[in-house]
């Protein structure tokens, strides 16, 4: 029972580099989310998607992009990495309105130097 799977678990990027954080879920959930977790700041919503082809910005979308071409996958793209993007990133999914228990991945710890 895989649930929500994120890759990689750890990554170090240089300033200006780009990368994609992968997230996939096998529960056929419509909704998927990306959060970043900073010490003392809690979880901030970056982007979310309510289904394939539909995405929307959260609280802190600047510097990130997402796509949702399939129900299973919701990758998060960093185009020009900056030190301010050093954080732990969590992907989550749920079935949607009325079924709002969210299931989380194990997180990706990203350091930008």
């Amino acid at each position, binding site marked *: 029972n895989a649930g929500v799977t994120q890759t990689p678990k750890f990554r170090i990027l240089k300033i200006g580099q780009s990368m994609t954080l992968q997230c996939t879920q096998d529960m056929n959930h419509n909704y998927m989310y990306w959060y970043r977790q900073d010490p003392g700041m809690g979880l901030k919503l970056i982007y979310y998607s309510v289904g394939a082809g539909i995405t929307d910005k*959260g609280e802190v979308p600047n510097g990130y992009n997402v796509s949702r071409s399939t129900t299973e996958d919701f990758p998060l793209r960093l185009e020009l990495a900056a030190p301010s993007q050093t954080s732990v990133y969590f992907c989550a999914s749920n079935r949607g*309105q009325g079924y*709002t228990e969210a299931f989380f991945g194990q997180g990706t710890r990203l350091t930008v130097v």
Partner: protein
Amino acid sequence: AQRVTQPEKLLSVFKGAPVELKCNYSYSGSPELFWYVQYSRQRLQLLLRHISRESIKGFTADLNKGETSFHLKKPFAQEEDSAMYYCALSGAGEYGNKLVFGAGTILRVKS
């Protein structure tokens, strides 16, 4: 705008003492409120939600719409309750409900 406020970053109590983790929210409609917990080296997971009106691991939370609060309570803390606790709100976004979290409270239960 949806906002969740958890005023305490750290709450430290002794084993057997009562616990109350505070959560206040801001939302113009009728929100769904949740408490999530993250134990050390584990994934974030749902603890309880207001619509279920249940008690999980001895924890309860009551939605108070007048005070816009959803405080988490337990009468007698256990050491295994030590974790990070997040209050969360699900409310309408442009395309559907979105789930937003507070800053979290670390609960430390001392023996």
